[in-house]
């Protein structure tokens, strides 16, 4: 027994050694952890280093206000406004697709679906998030673009039916409910149904007229902002769904139970209590979705048509557009690095803009999410 006895109190020297070792190991860990800091700094420095000469040579005005993009012209022109608008347009389209769908899906996942079904849907989101962007781009170019081109009108009218029929019926029923609220109780049901039926009929007629118009829309080229918007929307969906669902979950059981206890239905407690509490998280989800759409390269490069024009009118989703990412990927060819041409630097200038956009969007979403965590933490 005596041989195994150890002094439980460390000697001074041993303790100092141990503290020293701890200090150094901690320092080492910090240095390694700082790699991402170094990486971010390096990225900013290297992109900015090659972007600044462009601003020095040509100033800011041309890039952000001009619409003539002729990088190889003689003399060259670098008006990238159309490109910024193109990026904005496809991002807007992606958001229009992804936000309603994503938030509805997040609500379903956090509050409506039973546990088993929820577990079954999770992999769908994961697979959508995991599919490589080039697979999406390939789909957009090889399958979706010809479809859009040959059956664009029918596709659009189908989409109109799919979107507006359920929405319109919903509104029709709601309106008929509200309108018949003050009528005598014995005739009210009949009046309600009559009104609802009339409204529905009007809706169907209206939709039929709309789809007849849409059917005749000729899609002159299948690679356009519409195509890319749909695909980017699907790609941004998983981000929006998972972040929004997280923040809906984070609102907590207490809030829901409190609201139910006061007699609210599920829809009411969601819209009046949960979503206001989780609202900032949902905004963060939308921001992250925007970032996913704006930073995507392969899909837009393959399927956006790459025409550096401002669509006429600006919301014309059927016109081909050019985006920041696709311009960088496609135009890098002429980059003469030894002497450094304006053409090379302008692409870094665009990359810098992209970087700054994503940087600030990211900061914003981070700030919002953190504030929400603090607030909900305080609430508990």
């Amino acid at each position, binding site marked *: 027994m005596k041989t195994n006895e150890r002094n439980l109190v460390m000697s001074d020297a041993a303790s100092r050694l141990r503290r020293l070792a*701890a200090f150094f190991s901690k320092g080492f*860990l*910090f240095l*390694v*952890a*700082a*790699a*991402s*800091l170094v990486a*971010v700094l390096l*990225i900013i420095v*290297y*992109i900015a280093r090659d972007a600044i000469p462009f601003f020095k040579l040509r100033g800011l005005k041309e890039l952000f206000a001009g619409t003539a993009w002729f990088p190889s012209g003689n003399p060259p022109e670098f008006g990238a406004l159309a490109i910024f608008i193109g990026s904005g347009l496809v991002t807007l389209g992606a958001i229009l697709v992804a936000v309603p*769908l994503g938030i*509805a*899906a997040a*609500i379903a996942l956090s509050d*409506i679906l039973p546990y088993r079904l929820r577990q079954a*849907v999770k992999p*769908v*989101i*994961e*697979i*959508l998030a*995991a*599919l*490589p*962007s*080039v*697979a*999406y781009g*390939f*789909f957009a*170019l*090889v399958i979706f673009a010809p479809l859009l081109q040959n059956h664009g009108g029918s596709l659009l009218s189908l989409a109109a039916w799919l979107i507006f029929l*359920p929405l319109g019926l*919903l509104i029709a*029923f709601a309106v008929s*409910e*509200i309108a018949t*609220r003050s009528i005598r*109780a014995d005739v009210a049901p009949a009046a309600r149904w009559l009104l609802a039926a009339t409204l529905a009929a009007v809706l169907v007629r209206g939709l039929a007229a709309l789809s007849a118009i849409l059917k005749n829309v000729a899609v002159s080229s299948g690679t356009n902002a519409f195509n890319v918007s749909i695909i980017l929307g699907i790609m941004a969906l998983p981000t929006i769904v998972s972040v929004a669902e997280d923040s809906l979950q984070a609102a907590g059981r207490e809030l829901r139970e409190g609201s139910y206890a006061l007699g609210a239905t*599920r*829809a*009411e407690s969601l819209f009046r209590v949960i979503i206001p509490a989780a609202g900032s998280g949902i905004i963060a989800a939308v921001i992250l979705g925007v*970032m996913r759409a704006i*930073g995507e*390269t392969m899909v837009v*490069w*393959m399927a956006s048509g790459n025409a550096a024009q401002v669509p006429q009118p600006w919301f014309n989703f059927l016109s081909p557009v050019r985006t920041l*990412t696709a311009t960088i*990927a496609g135009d890098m060819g002429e980059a003469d*690095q030894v002497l450094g041409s304006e053409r090379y630097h302008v692409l*870094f200038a665009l990359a810098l803009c*992209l*970087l700054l956009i*994503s*940087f600030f969007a*990211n*900061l914003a979403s981070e700030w919002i999410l953190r504030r929400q965590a603090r607030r909900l933490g305080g609430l508990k």
Partner: protein
Amino acid sequence: MKLRSRRLLDRSLTGVSVMAIVLMSLSLLVLLGPIFSRGAAAFLFRATSEFRRFNLEQFNRGDSRRIAAESRAVAEARQPLYGMLAAFTAELEDMDPARRRELRQQFKEVRDLLRELLGPLPGEMDAVMLRQQYGQTRWDRARVTLQRILFSEQWDYSDPSRMGRKVLVPRRQAFAGTQLEPLFPHLQQNLKSMLQPRFTFYWRFLSDRSLDSHFFGGIWPEILGTFYLTLGAMLLAIPFGVIAAIYLSEFAAAGRLVSLLRVCISTLAGVPSIVFGLFGLAFFINTLHLSHSKSVLAGSATLALLILPTIIRAAEEALKSVPHAYKEAALSLGASPLRMVLTVLLPAALPGILTGVIISMGRAAGETAPIIFTAAVSVGRPLKLWETLNQPTPALPWNIYNLATEHQAVDQIRHVQFGMVLTLVLLVLLLNLAAIVIRARISRKMRG
């Protein structure tokens, strides 16, 4: 009354949100459907005798005696056809000049198409390009060519107010009364015996190199390149990612520096992939001179940066989910914090870390934009391990882009493109499946 409408609203919310889920699942199905069905055709298809001849001659594969017997049978079946060609060539010489001029061009088209269908015609010079040395290796492609031989595409421009309409005119008509006329029905009836299509499972699509820029063969160099790129990215990113996660979850005191670090990590996660590509070119290749030109190493380093935040976050999450009791028990037994991390924390968090690593592997394998300027080329042979340090490689994602947009015969090699997409998608799906399985195991263990 009010209650009714409130309930209606509640129902409709349920309806709308379930609809969103259904739409989302549907879009996944629509995406994967064609990729799976048409991608499968790269592996499982009806191969013609030309396919077997090709395999024997180029890869030295297959039973040479059986193929020789088949070749004889095929040659015999084609003999009458070649006879008609020769007879018509002679007949053409004796025609009056106007008719000859008219038919010669059409005859040339027929000959070109027949060569595409069956391989070199008798008496032709030896071709150099492989695509000229063999006929159609796939029955589905052969059927397409057959249609083009039987019918010539013409356009009816009679209505000037709109684009012309396509009219299929039987070529037979043009050659009516000549010795070539019976060729068309003969070809249609006997094509099967001329090409002997047979169902083939071409699993070697994964392990063959491509020949004549993807007209023939498989996608091995691309698969290997993707493997190297992913492996390299993981080797570079895992140590950094896990160590950073350990620091952040165990040692970092809340402070300015640490929150700056966190901001940097999420910034890095948000940088668009094309910017990573530009940075990789400007930094790893032009500044550090990791390699002379594009190389797997430079591509891996770029990809490693891209997946670093994912790994850090996943690892930190996993480390944080280890119960506090574990750590405290280890520390109270007198282990130093570092030792506690190495012997208690890491093993306990390993499955969680692994999940994150596997998911980011899928991400690294599928990214295209970062490797455009740093690693990817369209033609190259499979690399040996040490060659990855200084040589570029074909890789699945880049070559999907390349074949789908830049190839000379985009339409003729659709099956290869779909096969590549399917392979990449399957790879990513399998990795994610593995992650899901591991995660399910963890949650089962946690629940006890």
